[in-house]
């Protein structure tokens, strides 16, 4: 048992780090992940595309994907090691901008697309020439991806798409999207869906930002009014879209969860050291300290669980079922940490970063993002169901919507 790299892993890590040192610069402690006044979107996109192209040329842009499509043909553990190293460097937002495309859309095309589709899209996406988004969620659908109501009707050699998607990250700067549609409303819900590649510049596609409770706009609604899509853009068979969508979703949950700079026990203990409770440092008052210890138990426990997953990858195995609880553990923690940070500050805890300074942004983010992360990518409740069913083998919920025609399922 050790936390060290194998010799091969160590060599790869050295290579990745050396490349990063040459291609970009280390993040300083002064750098903040979320700058208060970021440069305009066009500048950020240009910088990200430039860095992504360099990554691709160096073979780090899509480590597990085949070489012939622009990847490296490497292993999952190499992918993880590269990401660990990149986290220490300025990466020009490539994860936010290309993460969905390379992490979810491209594997979907690789697994379900024709050879022509692979040749057309994979390399361009991995190089950063084209940006992708995922168009699955719908307003009435929530956690139920198979409830897609956006319709696609065949019209000669193409399909006409009508409907609406929501919670789409990056729709406003994406070139293409992968979309789930209803092609047979008379079939049961899982058997009447089809997936298409969608040109986001096509006529009839309208992107509107969603304003979040934090007053930020990280997501979009996307409306489709008579959008024409050639049949050659179809991914997989007609009405077999559920299996295509499933292959995309398999890649999703890994991508959602706490970010490395989220408010954690260190931030809380630091804050507790700097403030008093009953006249002594709050970190020596068990009303505060015990909650920090309890928070550490889960945060560090989750980190150790990730290490177990990483160990499996390192051995070329699939991560165990314990990985499925990571988000379930981390999501509610963030919200509780935010409450505790505010409590440590006392009355002043109800002020915002405008009054308390940039460092408080971490707390405010935890407060709003913490509420959202309990919902995004599978709610707390859905995740518990998944653990109960897939890990413990308990029966699925009683479903009344699986066998009837989709058009008869109550909305």
């Amino acid at each position: 048992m050790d936390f060290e790299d194998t010799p091969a892993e160590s060599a790869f890590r050295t290579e990745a780090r050396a490349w990063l040192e040459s291609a970009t610069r280390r993040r300083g402690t002064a750098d903040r992940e979320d700058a208060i006044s970021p440069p305009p979107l066009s500048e950020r996109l240009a910088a990200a595309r430039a860095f992504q192209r360099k990554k691709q040329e160096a073979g780090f842009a899509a480590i597990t994907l085949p070489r012939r499509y622009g990847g490296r043909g490497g292993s999952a553990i190499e992918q993880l090691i590269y990401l660990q190293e990149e986290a220490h460097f300025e990466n020009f937002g490539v994860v936010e901008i290309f993460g969905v495309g390379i992490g979810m859309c491209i594997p979907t095309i690789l697994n379900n697309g024709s050879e022509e589709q692979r040749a057309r899209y994979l390399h361009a996406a991995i190089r950063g020439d084209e940006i992708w988004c995922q168009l699955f969620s719908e307003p009435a659908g929530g956690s139920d991806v198979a409830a897609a109501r956006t319709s696609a009707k065949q019209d000669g050699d193409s399909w006409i798409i009508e409907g609406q998607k929501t919670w789409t990250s990056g729709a406003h700067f994406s070139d293409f999207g992968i979309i789930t549609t209803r092609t047979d409303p008379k079939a049961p819900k899982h058997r009447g869906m089809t997936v298409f590649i969608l040109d986001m510049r096509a006529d009839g596609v309208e992107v509107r930002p969603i304003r979040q409770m934090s007053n930020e706009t990280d997501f979009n609604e996307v409306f489709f009014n008579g959008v024409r899509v050639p049949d050659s853009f179809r991914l997989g068979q007609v009405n077999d879209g559920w299996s295509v969508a499933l292959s995309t979703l398999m890649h999703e949950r890994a991508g959602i969860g706490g970010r490395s700079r989220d408010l954690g026990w260190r931030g809380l203990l630091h804050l507790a050291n700097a403030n008093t409770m009953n006249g002594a440092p709050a970190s020596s008052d068990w009303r505060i300290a015990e909650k920090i210890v309890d928070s550490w138990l889960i945060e560090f426990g989750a980190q150790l669980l990730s290490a177990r997953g990483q160990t499996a990858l390192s051995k070329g195995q699939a991560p165990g079922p314990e990985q499925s609880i990571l988000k379930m553990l981390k999501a509610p923690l963030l919200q509780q940490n935010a409450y505790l940070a505010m409590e440590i500050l006392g009355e002043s805890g109800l002020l915002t970063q405008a009054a308390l300074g940039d460092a408080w942004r971490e707390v405010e983010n935890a407060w709003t993002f913490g509420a959202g992360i309990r919902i995004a990518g599978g709610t707390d409740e859905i995740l518990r169901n998944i653990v109960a069913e897939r890990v413990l083998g308990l029966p699925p919920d009683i479903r009344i919507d699986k066998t009837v025609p989709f058009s008869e399922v109550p909305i």
Partner: protein
Amino acid sequence: MNFDFSDEQKAFGEQTRRMLDALDPIADARSTLAGQIPYSAKAWRGLARLGFQAVTIPSEHGGLGLSPLDLCTAAAEVGRSLAPVPSLSSAYVCSEAIRLFGSEAQQARWLPGIADGSIIGTWAAPERGVELMQTTVRTQFLKDSLWGAKAPVLDGVVADLAIVLAATDRAAPILTLCELNATGVHRRELESLDPSRPVAELTFEAARAEPLGTADWRAWETIQARAAVLLAFEQVGAADRALWMARDYALTRKSFGRPIGSYQAVKHKLAAVYAKNEVARAHAYYGAWAIASDADTLQLAAAGARLAATEALSFAAQENIQTHGGVGFTWESDCHLFYRRARHAALILGPTSVWKQRALTGLTEQLESTLS
């Protein structure tokens, strides 16, 4: 045994609810978020017409001469409506402080205006960067003048006067009364997590002030405890509303072909919210009784009310978002207004830890009195 409000008290709550419902105070709360208004003048006037601000003020000063007990049902409605009004600052704290501890002259000067809603009062106790304790007050009251800075001060931008906690050359701090439009008072708005309950920093540079009767730190603790009970009613009102919002949404929103409210995960979550709300309501009632009967256990009762109500609203607001799913995370949804109010209410009268100390002290006294 009559652990309930009287029919008159309940009717006052109903009246308040009808008045507020008609005004759509949530729209005003959104206007405060957009920075368009500092508070809802129309809701405040509506409350004044019902006598809300006048309830506890003696009739000789233009009030109704009733007890804080008579204000509780209406406070719950103010909380439920999320109306952005200076109820806590003016009616629960400042008005009561002057009534209980002010001199005759101070009462005569200020209470009539507070009673009809034309004067808004507040309090200024905490200071930035230091824990509020009897020994840490840095603002000075010297020769009839205040020097120092206070923040956060609730409704500090619009208030006409404030009860200001200040150190003197004597050992313990006292409460002073300061007109905020006087020279030497500077106000600066500070951004609050809940802009429907705006706060400010008040800086005093030789601002004229006078002692509030002989009110000292102990008086301040009494004022705080009494206000905590009324705020607890607001919190319980808001928590109820959040629960029923979630419940209504759970009945209509469908997932996997069924209303989400038919899943035990949602049912049991909302049952837990309900249980917390009822516990909080019971403690708030007891706090109201303790105020009305001048009970020895006021601090304990107030701590119970404040702790239970803070927990209830905090949980109800967060699980209301959770029940709403993605929609609950949007700006357009009202969910975040409750989420904001929950944290604001949790902190504005001092954090939970302070009230746990008061509860422990009260419980220790109660245990000793049983044993002795």
